[in-house]
């Protein structure tokens, strides 16, 4: 792996909910003790189901929300310790593409205004001659410059979201489920565009998704999260999973081939509430391999440094 661009060190985020005149507030750990690094030019995938903390992790890495504990270092600078002005400067080099291209673009802004926004935040102006080139880089005709989001299809809007994320020529882009609200045909177009942009611009991606099949296609390394914790890091897309949860995720993905139909061994049990996690391994309630040890003690991420897994009984 090349030198890490991003280091995430024992990062945690605690959320509190409820609490009022009579109710006691309840707390949950959305992200628990996550340590990771992302190499320059790498595409790191984070996969997990809803509520596993993957989007919270993405927001923490960009410091869009403040961590409860831990550090994030970007190219040698600890961004979790930066004062606001320095952080804003640093933010030129990182950006984000959001899940829903319908709510992430202001309906009253023309595409030109959408693309000017990142410049405005940095106290600069968008040179008008750059606009056609910015649109064309994401496969949109330059004639769209004065169009408004409602005139665009979902796939076109997401291309605008990508153009906006790339406006200030960042090194690092967080992609938070960028294709989850698009048709599969459009998803494939967007993924092809993202791959092409990475190659041309030398970008580093943090790619958040619930779709392990897509992550295995697009990413170099894969982080699997379950209820706030990293349970496994797959060193590449070919290595077989060792955590029973990763295996269950893979088994839930159907190949488009009726000849490869199989019996699904459905996970039994329910996902525990993040406000009341069981004492041991969070996955023990649904795990076919769970033992008494798993129900008492939480396994730490360990084993092979290149392929760590948090499980007492790995495959």
């Amino acid at each position, binding site marked *: 792996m090349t030198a890490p661009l991003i280091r995430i060190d024992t990062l945690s985020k605690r959320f509190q909910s409820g609490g009022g005149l009579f109710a006691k507030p309840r707390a949950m750990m959305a992200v628990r003790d996550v340590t990771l690094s992302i190499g320059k030019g790498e595409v790191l995938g984070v996969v997990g*189901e809803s509520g596993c903390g993957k989007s919270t992790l993405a927001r923490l890495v960009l410091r869009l929300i403040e961590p409860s504990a831990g550090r994030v270092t970007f190219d040698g600078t600890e961004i979790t310790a930066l004062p606001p002005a320095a952080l804003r400067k640093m933010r030129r080099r990182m950006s984000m593409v959001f899940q829903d291209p319908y709510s992430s673009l202001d309906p009253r802004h023309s595409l030109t205004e959408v693309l000017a926004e990142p410049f405005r935040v940095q106290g600069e102006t968008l040179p008008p001659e750059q606009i056609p080139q910015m649109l064309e880089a994401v496969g949109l005709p330059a004639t769209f410059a004065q169009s408004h989001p409602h005139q665009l299809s979902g796939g076109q809007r997401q291309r605008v979201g990508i153009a906006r994320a790339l406006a200030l020529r960042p090194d690092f882009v967080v992609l938070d489920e960028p294709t989850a609200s698009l*048709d*599969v*045909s459009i*998803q494939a177009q967007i993924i*092809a565009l993202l791959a092409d942009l990475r190659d041309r611009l030398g970008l580093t991606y943090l790619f958040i998704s619930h779709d392990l*099949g897509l992550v295995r296609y697009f990413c170099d390394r894969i982080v699997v999260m379950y209820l706030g914790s990293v349970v496994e890091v797959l060193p590449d897309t070919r290595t077989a999973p060792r955590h029973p949860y990763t295996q269950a995720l893979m088994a839930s993905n159907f190949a488009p081939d*009726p000849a490869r139909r199989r019996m699904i061994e459905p996970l039994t049990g329910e*996902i525990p509430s993040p406000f009341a996690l069981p004492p041991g391994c969070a996955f023990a309630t649904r795990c076919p391999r769970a033992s008494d040890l798993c129900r008492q003690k939480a396994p730490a991420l360990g084993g092979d440094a290149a392929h760590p897994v948090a499980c007492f009984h790995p495959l």
Partner: protein
Amino acid sequence: MSALLDLDGVGVSIGRLALLEGISLTVERGQVLGLVGESGSGKSLTAMAAMGLLPLIGGRVTQGSVRFDGQDMAAMTEAQRRALRGGRIGFVTQNPMTALDPVQRIGEQVDVVSRLHLGLDRKAARARTLDLLTQLRIPEAAVVAEAWPHQLSGGMKQRIVIAMALAGDPDLIIADEPTTALDVTVQAQIIQILGNLVREKGVALLLITHDMGVVAQVCDRVAVLYAGRLAEEGPVRPLFAAPAHPYTAALIGCIPQDGMAKGSLTGIPGAVPSARAFPPGCRFHPRCARASDLCRSAPPPITPQGDGRVACHHPGAAR
């Protein structure tokens, strides 16, 4: 034996806008028919036509006929159609979060279906509800029946919606993207449950989905819609092994698979046209690599292809 659900050349319009054209489909008992296509292809509209629900959205059937168990839906009274829906035709919606009444206990919501459609009394209806919940592998059915919707997870709620669809003892279940709002591991469970129902109870299932992986896993036949017309229809195995319509092939090619080379996933260029601007000829031609002048001028007729049908001037090799 005649098919349980038989759509014959159905056309649907809303106002002056023709949205569906010449849709012919059949679903037999004990069979799963997948209905696939991108958003805007007309999948949900086809389901609404099958249930006689088009007036709800201001639509009407302008050509062809919809027959359920041999009876023409158009010739029925609204009361007769209403008796079918929830009774012999069960419906599973896309979003279980909005399908349940938030201020009514789970059990009551399921009970009411069998009281209404099967004429059961309170006690018998509850016994049936608990039996259904148990069949759907809901642990502690009696406790769940007393719970409120907000206390259940998404996957659990979708199982309740399926129980409601089953409570009227249906012959046909129409499921419109039943797993799209769910997590992947839960999706696998729900697909398994639906597949088992067809095999064990002999019901017919019309499964609307955009996911060719789900189709491959659970369907017997599949109908591919594009821009309001049927592109291809046939049994899943030959259809996946050698799709005749370029659109079918492209849809299958959009799913990332293990061992796929990076860069091989390219998607389908362009987007589904809006009903206000359907292109002339074959509606897929602006996105199709095989398009010729013929495709740009004349809509392709539906021709037999193996055990199925295809609407393409330049279909792939014969199956």
